[in-house]
């Protein structure tokens, strides 16, 4: 199957093309085509994964374009990392598509939605399979397009429009860095191919400074896609898209692409300590930064979005501290439980048509299936022991500790605390207490519950592929046979870390419980309503405003400057030239006074001038 792995992305593409053309006729049944297609590619990817476990990396390429002496190639590659992500992506995509069948019921542009989903899945899978940076960039952008289309699915909503635009442009800023990095790498190593690049780096063909620069530019791309600070602010706005989309793209797959990028180009980073530092710091900062914002938001999806950002920060932190396995591990687990959370949130929104958590409450009894599933997700993300989140987060903390980066380590700890706090703030506000809205909400249809169920299971047990007790299969699998990867399959850390992590997360839950259920502690215990910090957090540290007043204004200003040049400098010049010619003409016409004697004078003057010049120069000038 491995040699046919290229089929995996193409099947969803094919389905989406079909839907694009015949969508009008198919209507709701479009869902089945989409689901079927992605199901097939899921099965294929599972097969590939199984084959890969005890087979070497498989790679196949064709010449894409010849420029100068260089052949730019395109193809696909089946590495350990690829296969894992293949499975993850196709699985989540499949579940989300099943989910959407119920969620999007009655939507006029139902088939279009599935077309977009299919296209996105294609792009994401293609990204994962890319054997070289150029192809990766190629799909990288297409993924962005998919995300753009799906965010803007409700195009008639102004917010959706703005969000879509913002998402595309902000990520593109990062992508520019990636593009430049690719170009620089090409001129330094003469190839886009990962293997060749790594080998020539290994051979130390690139100077340290240049390497750092390249790594940072690469990271810029990752920052854009994974919504890391400072390019994070598009992700919360992206929640304007339909909830399944948020689950698929903005929780599980696309946003993880940034992490994937860093992971896949890990040898480049590991070659430059500065770059590693930066990744770790940005990751750590983003983690706590986003978590702190999540504390005070009141839109359920936005809270989850910020939590996503924060979790991605975790992964970056992991990679930055050489926790290669940890990063990937958390990427997988997070994909499951965050998707679960989003889908659950979706089913809640589906039921009561609001996203404001203060308008919710007391749903526990009403939604018998959604509620426990949401709870699983919540527990898993807040790292309660024995759930997947617990293990992956522990892995990260350990790698941070082993790396000896204690500041970041403690930041991660605190973030763990904050995480569990805001997640359970969310949980309690939604499910406990008195219902605030009179909407008679019923449980969501089976098509929506089933995916949640599956994800729930995964959220619980996906952690056991990499545990300190039962061995680190994941790590082994990833590291084995990858000669460019100089990291341990599993980093050993002191046992107390695990305990501490558990304590932190549980205390977070406890605090939330006390505040929002028991209400023994006032809500203003931590931060007073309307206090400076509170407003700052509610306004997300005024990041958007800052951007508007700096970048936005600068661009506008430059544009105006150009238009002034156009109007006054160039226009003025045109005006001057034409004016001169015209005035010359009128002068000549005025000389033509109609007085024949004037003409005579002109003749005589002409003669005189010629003769005089001739006389003065003695007729011997040249």
């Amino acid at each position: 199957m491995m040699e046919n792995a290229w089929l995996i992305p193409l099947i969803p593409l094919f389905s989406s093309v079909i839907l694009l053309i015949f969508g009008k006729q198919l209507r709701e049944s479009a869902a089945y085509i989409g689901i079927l297609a992605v199901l097939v590619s899921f099965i294929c990817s599972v097969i590939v994964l199984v084959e890969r476990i005890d087979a070497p990396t498989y790679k196949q390429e064709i010449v894409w374009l010849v420029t100068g002496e260089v052949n730019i190639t395109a193809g696909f590659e089946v590495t350990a990392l690829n296969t894992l992500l293949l499975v993850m992506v196709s699985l989540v995509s499949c579940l989300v598509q099943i989910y959407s069948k119920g969620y999007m019921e009655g939507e006029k542009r139902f088939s279009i939605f599935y077309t977009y989903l299919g296209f996105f899945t294609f792009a994401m899978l293609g990204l994962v399979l890319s054997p070289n940076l150029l192809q990766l960039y190629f799909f990288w952008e297409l993924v962005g397009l998919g995300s753009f289309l799906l965010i803007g699915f409700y195009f008639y909503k102004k917010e959706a429009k703005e969000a879509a635009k913002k998402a595309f442009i902000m990520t593109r800023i990062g992508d520019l860095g990636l593009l430049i990095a690719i170009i620089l790498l090409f001129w330094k190593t003469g190839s886009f191919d990962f293997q060749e690049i790594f080998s020539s780096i290994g051979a130390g063909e690139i100077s340290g400074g240049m390497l750092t620069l390249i790594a940072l530019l690469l990271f810029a791309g990752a920052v854009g896609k994974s919504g890391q600070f400072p390019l994070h602010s598009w992700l919360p706005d992206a929640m304007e898209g339909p909830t399944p989309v948020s689950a698929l793209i903005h929780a599980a797959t696309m946003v993880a692409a940034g992490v994937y990028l860093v992971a896949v180009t890990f040898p480049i980073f590991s070659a430059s300590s500065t770059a590693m530092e930066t990744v770790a710091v940005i990751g750590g900062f983003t983690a706590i930064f986003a978590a702190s914002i999540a504390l005070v938001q009141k839109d359920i999806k936005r809270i989850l979005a910020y939590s996503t950002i924060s979790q991605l920060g975790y992964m970056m932190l992991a990679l930055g501290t050489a926790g290669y396995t940890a990063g990937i591990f958390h990427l997988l687990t997070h994909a499951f439980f965050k998707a679960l959370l989003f889908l659950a949130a979706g089913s809640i929104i589906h039921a009561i048509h609001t996203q404001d958590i203060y308008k919710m409450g007391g749903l526990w009894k009403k939604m018998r299936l959604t509620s426990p599933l949401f709870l699983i997700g919540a527990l898993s993300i807040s790292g309660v022991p024995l759930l997947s989140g617990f293990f992956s987060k522990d892995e990260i903390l350990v790698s941070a500790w082993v790396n000896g980066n204690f500041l970041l380590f403690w930041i991660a700890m605190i973030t763990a605390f904050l995480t569990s706090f805001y997640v359970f703030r969310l949980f309690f506000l939604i499910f406990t207490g008195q219902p605030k809205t009179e909407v008679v909400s019923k449980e969501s249809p089976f098509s929506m519950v089933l995916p949640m169920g599956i994800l729930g299971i995964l959220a619980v047990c996906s952690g056991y592929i990499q545990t300190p007790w039962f061995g680190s299969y994941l790590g082994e699998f990833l590291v084995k046979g990858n000669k460019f990867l100089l990291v341990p399959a599993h980093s050993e850390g002191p046992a107390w870390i695990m305990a501490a992590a558990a304590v932190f997360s549980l205390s977070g839950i406890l605090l939330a419980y006390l505040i929002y259920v028991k209400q023994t502690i006032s809500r203003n215990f931590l931060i007073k309503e309307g206090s400076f910090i509170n407003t700052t957090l509610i306004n997300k540290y005024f990041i958007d405003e800052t951007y508007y007043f700096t970048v936005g204004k600068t661009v506008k200003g430059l544009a105006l400057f150009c238009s002034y040049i156009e109007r006054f400098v160039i226009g003025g010049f045109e005006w001057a030239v034409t004016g001169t010619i015209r005035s010359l003409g009128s002068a000549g016409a005025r000389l033509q006074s109609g007085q024949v004697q004037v003409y005579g004078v002109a003749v005589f003057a002409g003669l005189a001038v010629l003769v005089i010049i001739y006389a003065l120069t003695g007729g011997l000038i040249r």
Partner: protein
Amino acid sequence: MTFLLSVLVFSPILGILLLLLTSKQHESNLKMFGFIGTVPPLLVSLILYQYYASGASLADFTIKNNWIRFGNLSQYDAKLFTVDYELAIDGFSLVLVLMTALLTSLAAFASHSIKKEWKGYFVLLLFLEIGMLGVFTAQNLVLFFLFFELTLISAFFLVGKWGFAEKEKAAYSFLLYNGIGSAILLIVIMILFARAGTTNIQALTHIITIGGVPTIAPISATMKYALLVGLVAAFAIKLPIFPMHRWMVMVHVEAPTPIVMLHAGVLLKIGAYGMIRFGMGIFPEQFKSVAIYLAVLGVINFLYGAFMAFIQTDFKRVLAYSSISHMGVVLIGLGSLQAAGVQGAVFQVVSHGLIAALLFYLVGIIQEKTDTSLISDLGGLAKTVPRLSGWLLAGSFASLGLPGMSGFVSEFLAFLGLFKSEPWLAAIGSIGIVMTAVYMLRAVLDITFGKEKEKYEHLTDLNWLQQIPAGILLLLIVSIGVYPSLLGEPLQRTLDAIMIGIGR
């Protein structure tokens, strides 16, 4: 086989005759014949491509007959001061000819929006096509100039008569700017002709680069520079390069949309073609030393166009400035003097031709339906005319260089080249890549997304017939974007020749 090129270039005459024979009232007939007239060149060019694809050498098609002989110097040398009628085609020309033939057919197809005087319109359109085809196949500068001016004149009338409100003003600024350009070009050509006694491109290349051939009067080193600068200036106006671009904006706003399709699609490309064929081809040494300035100009164009497009209120103006910006990419590529860069420039010539044609085709339809192209007047079209909006969105993504579409390949290659030769310049220029996304999305989303205006509720969407041109164009754009070798193959030999010329 040699007759084939003459047939290619002059086949539109059939259509012209057909039109002249029909009475000027028969609107439908005239429109039909007008379209039919553009078919023969398309067929011939496809035949040519077929020959090429089947491995035949394009050199077989070269045609060369005596035409004009100035002066009475036959006693010295029979070929002295002669201008031959010589057409030839290579990969580069072939691609452009194909594009020209195709776009003209599409433009003729899109000309159903023309309201009056169809006879004159289509006759001029076909003359324009003759001119464009001739420009890309002419093998000496005088012949080139002849066809060049033919395009100028017919375009002048097409803009001036069938354009929108400010048509005559636009036609005049088109005429004068290009007039200045062609005046400079003529002087350059004449100096070469008078000094070398020939205008044949190969002969000139030999004389300029290798030398050792006795000339009527010496061509000093400084003069070579002067000539090159003249050439570049002349084609810079055509391209257009900041600050000689204002006419082009006017034309794009005022001209009838089928003509803008051709203008943005092909006529602007003549500038690029000239720079590559004559600038780099005949004066490689000198070109190398001015390349850096071209690169700088290119970056300026790229950014200037982008920023201007960002604040335009009329969608046509946005597209006009985006054309300026994209022509900057051509300069960036040429200025880089890298194989990749030059390749990117050539790719951009083709790619932008297709993309601009697509976008203007759609704008034309929008204007036809809503009588406006002001962004503020439009909005929420996706609701009422989803297909139209879909094509528009696709077109705009192609234009902002989304991978998988031709625009990306050319931009990438151009910058790949420039980063090698002038990293800092390239770094500055690359800001434009983001800006492109910014202004394109701003404009297109304001038109298609958002709340729909009730006055447009009754709009009818595209029918399948109207979608054909868009479909063809997008198909080409995507297939080049997905598998650029389609384009890379035919261009390879030309590019190699150029690169050898500039010694890289």
